[in-house]
C-alpha cells in the first residue's frame, strides 16, 4: 500500500566496492578460457568436446533466455511485485550478445555435430533427409542462427539499457515504451527459442520430430532461470546486499515460480513422453530407445530429481520463505536442468551408455564461468535495482497474504 515504505538510497542499491563478485569478471573469464583450452587440447577427442560444449552451451543459453523471458513478461503483465528483482534478471540476460562468440565452436564444428544432414554426401542417400533439405541445410541453418542470436542481442540490450536509463531519467515514459515493445518481444522470443531448440538439439537426430520440442526447451530454460534468479539474490543477501529491499516476500514469489515451472516442465515432459509411448510408432519412439541402457537411469533420475523432489520440497510455504532451504532447492533444480539438457544432447555422442567425463565437466565449468563473468560485469555497472521504476514503491511494500 506504499505507506510504510522506506526508500533505500541509491548507494545502498549498488554492488559494494569491496564485494568479491567484482573480481568475478576477470577470474571467470580466465577460468572459462582455461577450461575450454584444457578440454580441447587435453581431451583429445574433438567430437566429444563438441558435444560436451553443445550441452553446456544450450544449458547456459537457457539460463540467459529464461531471464530474458522473465524480464519480457514482467513488462508485458505490468507486474509490480518484481521490480526489485527485475534488474537481476536483466543482468542475467545481459550476456546474451556474448553467446554470439560462444556459438563459434558450434558454428565451426557444425559438420561434426550435425553431420547426418549437413553432409550432402551422407544425406542424399536418405529420402527422409532429402525431404527435409529445404529446412535442414547448411546455409539456412546458418541464417537462422544469425537471426536468433541477433534477436536475442537486440532484445537483451533494449530491455536492459532502457531500464538502466530509467535509473537516472525516472518517469513513466520508459515503462510505457518497454511495455509496448515487450509484446512483439515475447513473440520474437517464442519463435526464436522454439526454432533454436529444433535447430541445435532436435536436429541432432534428424529423423526424429516432436511438435512439443520447442515448448520443452522453453520449459527447462524457464525453470533454470527462475532458480538462478533466486540463487543469485540469495547469494547477494549473504553479504547483506539489498537487505530490506529484496525481502522474503520476493523470495517466496520466486520460489512459487520455481515450483510452478517445475510442474510445468514435468507436464510438458510427461505429455511428450506419454503420447509417444502410448502410440508406440517407431519413428517417434526412437528418441527414447536411443536413451536406453544406462541412459534410462538418467531418465528416471530426471523424473525424480527434476520433478518429484523439488515438487514435494517446494510445496511448503516456509520452505520458500527461508533462505537456506530455498537456496538448496535452487541449486538442486539448476543441476537437474543441466542434466535434462545432457540427456537430450549427449546420447548422440555416447551411443552405448551414460558417461560423464572431464571434458564435459570442463566445458560446463568453462561456459558457466564465462557467463558468470559477463553477468557480474553487468551487475557492477549499474544499480542492482531499477530505482527509477514508477512501481518501485509497490514492489518494496509487497507482501504475500
Amino acid at each position: 500500500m506504499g505507506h510504510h515504505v522506506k526508500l533505500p538510497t541509491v548507494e545502498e542499491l549498488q554492488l559494494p566496492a569491496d564485494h568479491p563478485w567484482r573480481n568475478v569478471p576477470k577470474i571467470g573469464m580466465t577460468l572459462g578460457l582455461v577450461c575450454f583450452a584444457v578440454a580441447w587440447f587435453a581431451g583429445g577427442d574433438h567430437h566429444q568436446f563438441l558435444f560436451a560444449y553443445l550441452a553446456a552451451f544450450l544449458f547456459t543459453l537457457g539460463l540467459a533466455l529464461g531471464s530474458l523471458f522473465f524480464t519480457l513478461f514482467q513488462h508485458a503483465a505490468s507486474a509490480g511485485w518484481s521490480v526489485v528483482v527485475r534488474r537481476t534478471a536483466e543482468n542475467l540476460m545481459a550476456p546474451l550478445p556474448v553467446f554470439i562468440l560462444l556459438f563459434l565452436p558450434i558454428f565451426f564444428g557444425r559438420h561434426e555435430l550435425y553431420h547426418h544432414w549437413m553432409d550432402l554426401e551422407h544425406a542424399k542417400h536418405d529420402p527422409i533427409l532429402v525431404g527435409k533439405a529445404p529446412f535442414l541445410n547448411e546455409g539456412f541453418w546458418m541464417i537462422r542462427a544469425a537471426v536468433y542470436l541477433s534477436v536475442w542481442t537486440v532484445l537483451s540490450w533494449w530491455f536492459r539499457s532502457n531500464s538502466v536509463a530509467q535509473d537516472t531519467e525516472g518517469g513513466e515514459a520508459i515503462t510505457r515504451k518497454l511495455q509496448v515493445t515487450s509484446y512483439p518481444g515475447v513473440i520474437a522470443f517464442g519463435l526464436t527459442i522454439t526454432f533454436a531448440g529444433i535447430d541445435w538439439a532436435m536436429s541432432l537426430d534428424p529423423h526424429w520430430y516432436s511438435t512439443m520440442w520447442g515448448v520443452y526447451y522453453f520449459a527447462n530454460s524457464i525453470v533454470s532461470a527462475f532458480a538462478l534468479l533466486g540463487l543469485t539474490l540469495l547469494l547477494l543477501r549473504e553479504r547483506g546486499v539489498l537487505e530490506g529491499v529484496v525481502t522474503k516476500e520476493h523470495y517466496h514469489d520466486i520460489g512459487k515460480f520455481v515450483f510452478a515451472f517445475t510442474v510445468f516442465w514435468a507436464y510438458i515432459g510427461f505429455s511428450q513422453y506419454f503420447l509417444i509411448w502410448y502410440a508406440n510408432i517407431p519413428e517417434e519412439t526412437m528418441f527414447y530407445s536411443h536413451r536406453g541402457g544406462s541412459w534410462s537411469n538418467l531418465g528416471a533420475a530426471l523424473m525424480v530429481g527434476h520433478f518429484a523432489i523439488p515438487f514435494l520440497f517446494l510445496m511448503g510455504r516456509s520452505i520458500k520463505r527461508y533462505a537456506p532451504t530455498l537456496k538448496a532447492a535452487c541449486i538442486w533444480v539448476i543441476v537437474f536442468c543441466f542434466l535434462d539438457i545432457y540427456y537430450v544432447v549427449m546420447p548422440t555422442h555416447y551411443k552405448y551408455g551414460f558417461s560423464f567425463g572431464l571434458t564435459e565437466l570442463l566445458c560446463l565449468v568453462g561456459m558457466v564461468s564465462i557467463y558468470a563473468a559477463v553477468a557480474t560485469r553487468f551487475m557492477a555497472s549499474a544499480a542492482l535495482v531499477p530505482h527509477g521504476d514508477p512501481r518501485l514503491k509497490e514492489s518494496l511494500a509487497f507482501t504475500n497474504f
Partner: protein
Amino acid sequence: MGNPAMKVYTEADQLSYPISERAPLVLGGNDFHGVTEVVTGLVERKPNWKWWAALAASLAMLSVYGISVAWLVWQGTGVWGLNNPVFWGWAIVNFVFWVGIGHAGTLISAVLFLFRQKWRTGINRAAEAMTLFAVACALSFPTIHVGRIWLLYYAAPLPNQMAAWPNFRSPLVWDFFAVSIYGTVSLLFWYTGLIPDLATVRDRARTKYRRMIYGFFALGWRGSNRHWQNYEVAYGILAGLATPLVLSVHSIVSFDFATSQVPGWHTTIFPPYFVAGAIFSGFGMVLTLLVPSRKWFGLEDVVTIRHLDNMAKIILLTGSIVGYAYGMEFFIAWYSGNPYEQFAFVNRAFGPYAWAYWIMLGCNVITPQVFWFKWCRTTPWFLFIISIFVNIGMWFERFVIVVTTLAQDFMVSAWDYYSPTIVDWGCFIGSFGLFCTLYTLFVRFVPQVAMAEVKSVMKVADPHHPAWEHAESVAAPATDEGASVAPPAAPDGGETAPDVPPSEEGAE
C-alpha cells in the same frame, strides 16, 4: 451510489491512470454499500418481462434438446450423421467445445487468484457459473453418445457381479474422471465464494422464505473474523487444487485424440495446445455473456471497461498460442517426412473440409489480432462481435480435428463425407438451450458479482483511504494483513462511515 466521501472514478480515469498506482476497479463513486445495492438489487427486484422472455426462449431451446435426445435414445445413434469412418461426429465436437468453454471460470478464480490479479473479482462469479453450466452441457454429450444411456454406469469403476471393469488404459475413462472431478471442484469453489454473498442476500431479505432459503445456503455465515479466516484458507487451498485441474482436464480431453496413431490426432503438442484453446474459448464465452449483461443489469461500474480490456488481452495471448500450435503442427507434419502426416494437414487446409479449416483459422488466429489495438479492446459492441467469432472458431476447431481427420483415414476406399442430420442440429442447438436456461436462472437467483471479493479490492478497502479519516472517532478500521482481503470491519452504526448498514456484514 452517491456517497459524498467517495471519489467518483470514470472510465477515462481508469484507462489513463498513472503507472505508479493501480487503477480503480470499481467506478462511479460506489462505496461498499453501493456495490451491494448494484449487485443484490438484481436478485431482489421482481424480474421484468425481458427476463421472462429470455427464460421462455431458453426453455424452448432446451425442449428441442429434450426432443432430440428422446428420439436419439429411442432410435439409437444412427439418427445422427455418423458413418463409417466418421464414428465420432458432432457429439464429440460439442463435448470438447463445451468442456473448453468451461475452462475460463476456474482459470479466473484459481490461476488469476494465485497471480494476484485483482480485476478477476469483477467477473469470476459469472465466469464460474458459466463454467459449471458448460460442464453440464459437456457431460450430456458423452452420456447420450453411448447410445444405451442406461448402461452409462459401466464407465464408472463400480463393483459389479459381471466383474466388468472399465478399461483404465482408455483415455475415455480418464475423461470420465477428469471431467467429473473438474465439475465437482468447480462447484465447490463457486459455492465457497458464494457463501458471504448469500449471507448478504439473507440479511437483506424481506420475506420469511427468502431468508430461510438463502439462510440455508449461507451456512450460518456471520462475517466474523474467524469466518473470514477460514474462508481465506479454504479459498486458497481450493485455488491450489483447481489450478492443476485447469491444465489436466483439457490435457486429458486431448489424449482422447493424441494417444491414437491417427495422423492429425497424434501429435505431442496437443495437451498444452488444447489447454490454451480452452482458455481462449472460455474467455470468448465470458465476453459473449458479460458484454450484454453488464449493460442490461447495470453492472458497468463493477464489470468495467478495464475488465473487458484485460480479457481481450488474454484472448489475444491464447489465440496466438493456438496459432503457434497450428503452425507447429503443420511445420512438423512437413518436417516429419511422413507422407500420411503431410497428407492429413494438407487435406485439412485444401481438401473437402477446407471451408471449415479456414473458418477455424480466420476466427481463432486472425480475428483476435485486432486486439492489438486499444480501441478494439475497449469498445464493448466490438468485443461482443469478436467474441462470437471466437466461439464459432473454437467450435470449428473441434470439428476440424474430429471430422476431417476421420473422414479421410488410412483406407481410401473407406473415405466418406460427414453431414449432420436434423437430430445433430437439435442436440447442438438444444445444448445452448440447457446452457441459457441455467444462466438465466443464475442471473435471477444468485448475485452475479462476487461482492465480498470486489469490496476487498476497492480503493476504499485500504485502511488508509481518505474516506476513513473522518471515521476514526467511531472505530479504527482493521489494519492487519487480512484487511487487504476481507473488507475492513464496518464501524458499527457509524453514520459518517462510507460503509453499509450493519445488517450487511451480519450483526453478531
